[in-house]
């Protein structure tokens, strides 16, 4: 994602972009490009497309792990807080109930668990996606507006070792997309 790579091979050029009309076209375009040996590439769709990420070589998804950790933290926080309040901070005889009325602590513990894990799921997702990111080179391409409406795009980044502007564009043209654009930095 980050474009702070030390060796910029093509100053001012982020990559090359090809547009398709259907997810299917995009999918096999991706396969072709991947087969061609491109690695630093990305695909864009106005909706989730099954297998698209895999097609461009994406494997590990760590969101679930984060959520698990978040959940456990929340649970410990909740239960710990209640125990501390009722046994350490100010122990009180409440209606003759024991200080450690653990059954009464379950609901809050549960809610804390849910709250923490829910928040982590969103935050981790956004963080890994590097959002918020209001500016992005891709937005320089007028056609890219439709990436969120009805068009499907394949991007080969200039950072890709196999990226050579002209050849890459020629290659992309062979994929049967509508038009091919350079993406200025």
């Amino acid at each position, binding site marked *: 994602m980050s474009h702070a790579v030390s060796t910029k091979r093509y100053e001012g050029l982020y990559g090359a972009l090809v547009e398709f009309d259907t997810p299917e076209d995009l999918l096999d375009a991706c396969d072709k490009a991947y087969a061609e040996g491109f690695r630093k590439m990305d695909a864009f769709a106005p909706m989730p497309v099954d297998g698209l990420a895999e097609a461009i070589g994406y494997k590990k998804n760590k969101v679930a792990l984060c959520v698990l950790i978040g959940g456990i933290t929340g649970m410990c926080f909740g239960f710990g807080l209640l125990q501390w309040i009722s046994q350490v901070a*100010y122990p009180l005889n409440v209606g003759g109930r024991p200080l450690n009325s653990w059954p009464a602590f379950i609901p809050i513990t549960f809610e804390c668990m849910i709250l923490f894990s829910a928040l982590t799921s969103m935050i981790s997702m956004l963080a890994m996606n590097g959002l*918020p*990111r*209001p*500016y992005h080179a891709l*937005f*320089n*391409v*007028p056609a*890219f*507006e439709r990436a969120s409406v009805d068009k499907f795009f394949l991007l080969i980044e200039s950072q890709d070792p196999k990226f050579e502007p002209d050849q890459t564009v020629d290659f992309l043209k062979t994929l049967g997309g509508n038009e091919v654009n350079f993406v200025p930095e």
Partner: protein
Amino acid sequence: MAQLFRPSSNTIAKVSIVAVVLLASSTIGVAYMIDRGSWITNVQVAPEQPIAFSHKHHVKDDGIDCRYCHTSVETSHFAGVPPTETCMSCHSQIWNNVTATQPIRDSWASGKSIAWNRVHNLPDYVYFNHSIHVNKGIGCSSCHGNVAEMPLIYKVNTLNMNWCINCHRNPAQYIRPRAEIFNVAYQYPDNQAELGAKLVKEYHVQSLLDCATCHR
């Protein structure tokens, strides 16, 4: 009009998130500082008094005992505020013509007593009893500080509930021998730990944390 923002906006976006978090936490921090600060608690604030009465002078220089003026501190919940007569008992003889003590003589003459401003004030729903504390080995200075060093009297403690609770939790760390109660310059000895424990036993001091101890 493809690009809506400048590249810098990315940094701004990320920074602003951090900023919001920082701002929120710092607001809370400030709120706490104000709440604990003297603007709310009046700690270290010496209010204007009708007479520039100096505890420093009377206690330290003249060595007058607390009970000379605060007569009912050992017997009542209310320590008592000295009547004009108490002042007159000396100031009819000494300093009996300086302007500083004029209000006393006015009060004496007119029968209207002197309107002091309260320094240590508790909310209505708090029932503090001086006598029991004094009788159980809690010295004046434990709450009121060393008045012998106060030209004008001021609060040294917040008198917040958690401050009270702190001592009620563990009286041993603040208790002192009954003989030292009115020694405003009293220093806790190094062996306060065991001395305290001993006194607590000796004076039958309980750690009272019931609400009704103070709220009725």
